[in-house]
């Protein structure tokens, strides 16, 4: 394209690299310096190892259990989608992919409306047996965390494993049967080993998400169940013990990096075309009796798992229950729009109280800025990566690292570096969109890179030979071709920014919360109105994210996956 391609590539790298160095690596270094600085060694006497080991152990435990449970649900579900055709298959698949785009606070709120003290199950039990207190104390328990994690991550197992399962050459299984293997022997000796790479990769990804889960654990686990993420938040925001928070961050970063490396190792395709189905895989209707039972059982279970929490959230946001008013005896369940109307009013006299509409305005503003930053930087980075240059090999990992760092770590780092007048968030609210951009950047690059690589160089050459200058080539050739992918990534950035909770919980000004931060605040305050407003806001967020993912499905190119 130019006489000095390496130089142009370097120029493309320049802005994204500078941004990353200043806003990601600087805070990261600050955390490391804090941990290994003298301040910390002085405080070493006060430090107890249990402050680290307790959350660390619990994080491993819950992530391990969550991953196992997710596999137990996800594997049969992957099989269901890989092999069987049944009425409502498409709809169920769409529903099963919904959780992936849902913000953590929405999921937490949804499970709160199902199993919480004010949730459907407890309210129903109280009304049925005339109880004065919620009988089931599922909230603030390990099962609640596990349930939400299964809800969240089953879609990952389904997406990754079912796609490689359906591409598996069915003749391999038939060959094994011909050689005398039973169905079970065929599964353990042929199918499972061939699925192992994608199974491992999906499991590690699920483990990673469970390990770094923040919002769900914070809102459903309560004070006694704190994971590393939650403990970082607690130590930094409630106890102001930044060194311990930093140490936890460093440990967590190390573990997530290790898992990410492992994941990318197992993710490399091993068998080439040999294991792939040469024909288009045929779905079959369940024929045998046990197959019918399996399909019905799975469909019902998946609907229960995926649709019930979401429906529970939406319905609960429109309903007042008698318990809301604190009067017992008369049952007064009624439909109401009150929670939605209240979103636009400021009732409380408290100075910390912010009308919900302001949170919505803040969030929209932040995501607008995030779209600009992440879209621009992501496209630049993707262009730089698409070029062939020797140093790309060294620069690319630098960009994928923010994926391994958790949002909470990012928030902590920002707190350490930018808690100064210039950046102080009350006057300069750019920190949140910058943090959101760092989180969304890898997704933009992943969507844009294959699209940019897919443009044949001959198209650009042809347009240059027809008299187009470099800018005209960019505007008339590249841009129209990339438009779809760009749109997809921008919508994705929008939903990420709207739902982001970890970094926002550190960085948002008490007077200017984002939607997720406001939801968290309302739901943890007593009173039916607060609860209702949290649910109303969660429902709205759910609606926007649902529409966003629908839009992505509509405009994305076939075969393009977001992770």
């Amino acid at each position, binding site marked *: 394209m130019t006489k000095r391609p390496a130089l142009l590539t370097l120029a493309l790298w320049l802005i994204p690299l500078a941004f990353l160095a200043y806003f990601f690596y600087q805070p990261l270094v600050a955390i490391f310096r804090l941990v290994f600085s003298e301040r910390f060694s002085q405080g070493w006497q006060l430090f107890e190892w249990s402050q680290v080991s307790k959350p660390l152990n619990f994080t491993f435990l819950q992530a391990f259990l969550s991953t196992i449970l997710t596999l137990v649900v996800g594997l049969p579900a992957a099989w269901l989608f890989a092999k069987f055709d049944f009425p409502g298959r498409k709809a169920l698949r769409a529903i099963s992919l919904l959780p992936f785009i849902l913000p953590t606070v929405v999921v937490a709120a949804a499970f709160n409306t199902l199993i919480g003290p004010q949730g459907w199950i407890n309210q129903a039990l109280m009304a049925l047996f005339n109880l004065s207190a919620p009988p089931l104390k599922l909230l603030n328990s390990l099962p609640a965390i596990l349930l939400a994690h299964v809800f969240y991550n089953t879609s990952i197992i389904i997406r990754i494993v079912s796609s490689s399962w359906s591409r598996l050459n069915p003749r391999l299984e038939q060959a094994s049967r011909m050689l005398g293997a039973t169905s079970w022997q065929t599964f353990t000796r042929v199918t499972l*080993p061939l699925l192992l790479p994608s199974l491992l990769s999906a499991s590690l990804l699920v483990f990673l998400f469970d390990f770094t889960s923040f919002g769900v654990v914070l809102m459903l686990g309560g004070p006694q169940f704190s994971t590393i993420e939650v403990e970082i938040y607690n130590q930094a925001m409630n106890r102001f013990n930044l060194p311990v928070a930093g140490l936890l961050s460093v440990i967590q970063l190390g573990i997530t990096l290790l898992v990410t490396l492992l994941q990318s190792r197992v993710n490399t395709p*091993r068998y080439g075309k040999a294991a792939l189905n040469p024909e288009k895989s045929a779905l079959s209707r369940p024929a045998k009796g046990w197959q019918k039972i399996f399909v019905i059982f799975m469909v019902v279970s998946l609907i229960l798992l995926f649709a019930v929490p979401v429906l529970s959230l939406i319905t609960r946001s429109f309903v007042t229950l008698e318990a809301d008013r604190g009067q017992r005896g008369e049952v007064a369940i009624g439909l109401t729009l009150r929670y939605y109307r209240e979103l636009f009013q400021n009732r409380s006299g408290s100075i910390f109280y912010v009308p919900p509409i302001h949170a919505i305005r803040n969030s929209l503003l932040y995501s607008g800025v995030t779209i600009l930053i992440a879209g621009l930087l992501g496209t630049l980075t993707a262009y730089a990566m698409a070029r062939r240059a020797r140093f790309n090999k060294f620069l690319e990992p630098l960009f994928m690292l923010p994926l391994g760092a958790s949002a909470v770590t990012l928030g902590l780092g920002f707190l350490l570096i930018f808690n100064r007048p210039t950046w102080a968030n009350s006057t300069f609210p750019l920190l949140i969109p910058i943090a959101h951009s760092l989180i969304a950047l890898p997704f933009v690059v992943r969507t844009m890179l294959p699209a940019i690589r897919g443009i044949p160089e001959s198209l650009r050459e042809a347009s240059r030979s027809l008299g187009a200058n470099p800018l005209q080539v960019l505007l008339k050739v590249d841009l129209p071709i990339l438009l779809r992918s760009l749109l997809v990534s921008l919508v994705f950035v929008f939903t990420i920014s709207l739902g982001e909770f970890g970094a926002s919980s550190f960085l948002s000004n008490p007077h200017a919360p984002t939607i997720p931060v406001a939801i968290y605040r309302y739901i943890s305050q007593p009173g039916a109105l607060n609860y209702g407003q949290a649910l109303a806001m969660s429902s709205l967020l759910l609606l926007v994210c649902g529409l966003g993912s629908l839009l992505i499905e509509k405009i994305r190119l076939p075969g393009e996956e977001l992770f």
Partner: protein
Amino acid sequence: MLEVRNLKKDYENKPLLKGVSFEVDHGELVCLLGSSGSGKSTILRIIAGLEEPESGTVLWQGQDLHEVPTHKRGFGLMFQDYALFPHKTVAQNIAFGLQLQGLSEEEISQRVKDSLESIRMESFADRPITELSGGEQQRVALARALAPTPKLLMLDEPLGALDHTLRTQLIQELRAILHQSQIPVIYVTHDREEAFGLADRLVILHEGVILQQGTPQELFEQPSTPWLAEFLGLGNLVSGTVTQTEPLMIKTAFGELTVDIQSHQLNPGEECQILLRPENAFINPLLSFEENNFECRVRDSLFMGEYYQLELLCDTTTLLARSHFPADIDSRIDVSWPAEKIWVFSI
């Protein structure tokens, strides 16, 4: 040993097999020959128990196999794309069936070694499957199917994916290995040369039924229908009308032919097809017969080594004929077909 009775099977709501019956005897190599899409592979898959027929039975030594699951039938199947396990080495692929039989480690390794020897791939034992060439994969797939000594071996177009030179070479090898094993074999192919080069007996599948079966020689000499004669590439097919019987005379577009054949029940006025084989054509510039002699124009002449392949225009009909003498293009020559070498199909 194996008996297939009246198999019926639909594919995408259209009948694919409309009642297929045939048998395979002890130590016999049967070639199931048919054009692609005729349902040959489906028959193998039904015998293997991988697919269920709409109706019909598969019997092994008189026992109905309907209730016997695939893995208990003890049959071997070599797939068209070989279906070698990509997560296993060459030796592990061959050992797979032996392990399932519960043999001891020593016996398995001994038999794998013997098996590799028989396909002359001893040094390939620990290679991953993904590094093998097409021909090597074919041999490993055969060894894997044969290793557990199946009661019946089925091969689904085993040479289909290979190029022509390799194919001719492998046919010889395959024949040797299969005959040595003494296992009854059903060999599916659409390739006439392959079938004739291997089979003890040929079974022709056409439009969902078995059209004809017999030794290669029987099929070659007495094809049952014009379609089969064309499918096997036996020669010129010409339509005609019976003018008289005893002797049988048939009128065609280029003249009347005398046919010396007893087996056909034909009446005067009846329409029929006749098969004129190029190799039976008599062409000699110095001699000509009275009987069945026609003067034709030479349209093309190809030198084939042992003979010349002539394309002749006899009146308005194009005929292929073999000649041991060269002929100039556009010259006129006499060609005759001996009455006893003409084959007739009634329609």
